[in-house]
């Protein structure tokens, strides 16, 4: 039963990782842009959710659609105004977009500091567990995990079964070829970035009920998301989901048998080992 509970804990933690990482993966997979403002979007959405829920007394889950739409539109606009121009810079476009999103992350963190202050906050929501026999399933992590699974499935269906999704994949694999086929690549990138930012914001809504968040948490969240998508395969949606779940289980085991420090350092050790063993893996999936 202990092994089963460790597995459950690991999968639930992995679900949280999928939630945090998959939207970053979408943006990277389609555009080749590592959105360094990813964590800032999550933190900002989480802090807004805290403010909304404590001010109105309403469920934080009500913020989910609002966060997706508002952040998605803001992300699309930001992509069109700030990132799309640098995407046309040829070989330097990835570096320039990195610089742009780095600057954006600082602006968003400062905005969060001005709006919500520097304190860590969290909501006392879904704190208890569902139990099956002696197995405990934390409610907040379950909701986050189910949301992440749904999100991943919808992303998969969208990208592989719909015209717009296939256009998006085509644009990521060969922008020139996509243009020749009549695909408006700039529009596709804007949609991908908007959806990615919208999903990051929904992650923030759920993260605030799982752990304390402050504006400065942003960089930790970006780093965590990047490590997960690097482990799973940059731009590989299924690979990232699997890597997130496996990492969750590995951390669950490490935390139980080796203690907190081992659990914390494990993702970075795995990343280093993978970089040394399989350097070719760290290229964008095509």
């Amino acid at each position, binding site marked *: 039963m202990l092994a089963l509970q460790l597995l459950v804990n690991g999968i639930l933690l992995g679900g949280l990782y999928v939630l945090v990482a998959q939207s970053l993966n979408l943006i990277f997979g389609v555009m080749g842009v590592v959105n360094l403002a990813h964590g800032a979007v999550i933190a900002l959405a989480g802090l807004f959710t805290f403010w909304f829920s404590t001010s109105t007394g309403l469920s934080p889950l009500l913020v989910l659609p609002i966060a997706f739409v508002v952040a998605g539109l803001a992300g699309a606009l930001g992509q069109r105004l700030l990132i799309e121009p640098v995407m046309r810079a040829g070989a330097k476009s990835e570096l320039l977009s990195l610089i742009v999103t780095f600057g954006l992350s600082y602006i968003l963190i400062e905005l969060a500091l001005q709006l919500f202050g520097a304190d860590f906050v969290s909501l*006392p929501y879904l704190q208890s567990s569902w139990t099956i026999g002696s197995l405990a399933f*934390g409610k907040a992590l379950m909701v986050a995990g189910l949301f992440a699974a749904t999100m991943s499935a919808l992303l998969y269906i969208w990208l592989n079964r719909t015209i717009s999704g296939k256009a998006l994949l085509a644009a990521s694999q060969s922008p020139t070829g996509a243009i020749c086929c009549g695909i408006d690549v700039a529009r596709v990138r804007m949609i991908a970035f908007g959806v990615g930012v919208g999903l990051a914001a929904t992650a923030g809504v759920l993260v605030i009920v799982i752990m304390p968040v402050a504006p400065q948490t942003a960089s930790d969240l970006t780093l965590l998301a990047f490590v997960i998508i690097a482990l799973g395969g940059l731009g590989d949606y299924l690979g990232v989901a699997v890597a997130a779940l496996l990492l969750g289980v590995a951390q669950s085991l490490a*935390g139980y048998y080796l203690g907190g*420090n081992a*659990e914390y350092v494990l993702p970075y050790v795995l990343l280093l080992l993978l970089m040394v063993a399989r350097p070719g893996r760290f290229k964008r999936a095509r």
Partner: protein
Amino acid sequence: MPKQQKSRVTSIRGWLGIPVLAALTALSGAARAAPPPIVIGTTISETGPLATDASYEIKGIKLGIAEANAHGGWLGRKLVLKYYDDKSSPGAAVRLYQRLITLDKVNLLIGPYSSLVTVAIAPLINKYHMATLEPGASVPSIYVPGNKWNLMNTADSTTYLHQLMPLAKQHGAKTVALLGLESAYSLACYHARLAQAKELGMKVVYKTTYTLQTDFSSIALAIKNAKPDVVLECGYYPDSVNLVRSLHGQGFAPQFLGETVGPVEAAYVKALGPLANGVFGNSGWWFNFKTPGNAAFISAYEKMFNEKPDYHAAAGFTAVQVLGAAVQGTKSVDQEKIRHWIVTHTVQSIQGPIQDNADGRTVGAVQDMVQVQGGVLKLVAPTSLAQAPPQIPYTGH
């Protein structure tokens, strides 16, 4: 032509110069009448993982300076506070203290929040011989002969939650789980509690140290399987919240649950709701202390910041009290004189008497114990000051 023009301009300037000169003379006289302010420098973790606790400390310092200025300042000089955000980063703090000392040339220094950051700046403080009050650095190992310019003004971290295990033992507890964050203060607390468990004959059935992390489910499961009567964590606010949630998530509620630092912050009860009820915490200062100026401090703090102070705020305020006493006692801002005065005098502060030994370590001060009861923090130990008896056991709701 150009020469004439120049001559005329010079002439006009000459006439205009008379009132300007007079005004400057008057201003110069005024400047002589008002002596330069005493500039107090510090850094604070306005952002980063220490921000929640640190924000109280800087407010206490600000209030202390405002109160001193309202009473004419020190030595007839107004006080000015110059501070920077060290972002909870020891590296950033080192750069900023270098700036405060060498570029800003502040007259006096107050240390940053946390032992973690203070350990980093200690070599600099001691290199420049700046007598620095340390309201937020509670690790006793800082205050050694090699660091003679660091001067403590709070109870040390080996006294954090020192009342919890004896209380638990009185109620039949025999086993304990101990956790310590990998940070200077929390490790000092963790090792002190480990030693205390041994002295009390309580069995440590689980122990671990951890880095700032979000997932405590494995640790909580390991604690659940070890079935301790007492869970005691030495950490900061974010990990305190995460641990309580994870224990609850794994369906485990120990009879006694104690966490340092986190429970005294208003954000703790907001984050945990009913799960916070019954959790013990520690505080070096409390609202019902009958110390000189305590009631006025609470009232002024609430008026100035529209919130209740905590013990970090009291420690910040006390640092200004001790510095003020030393400056006025020595009638100077000379670092050597101030340091000597502080280690040879007792200051009656709002926290109680502050007396540093020759190494700059506060002697005789201990942290008291509080407990969240019905969503409100109450002092429960020592008995002589207790507002309510401890509520036992912790139920997790």
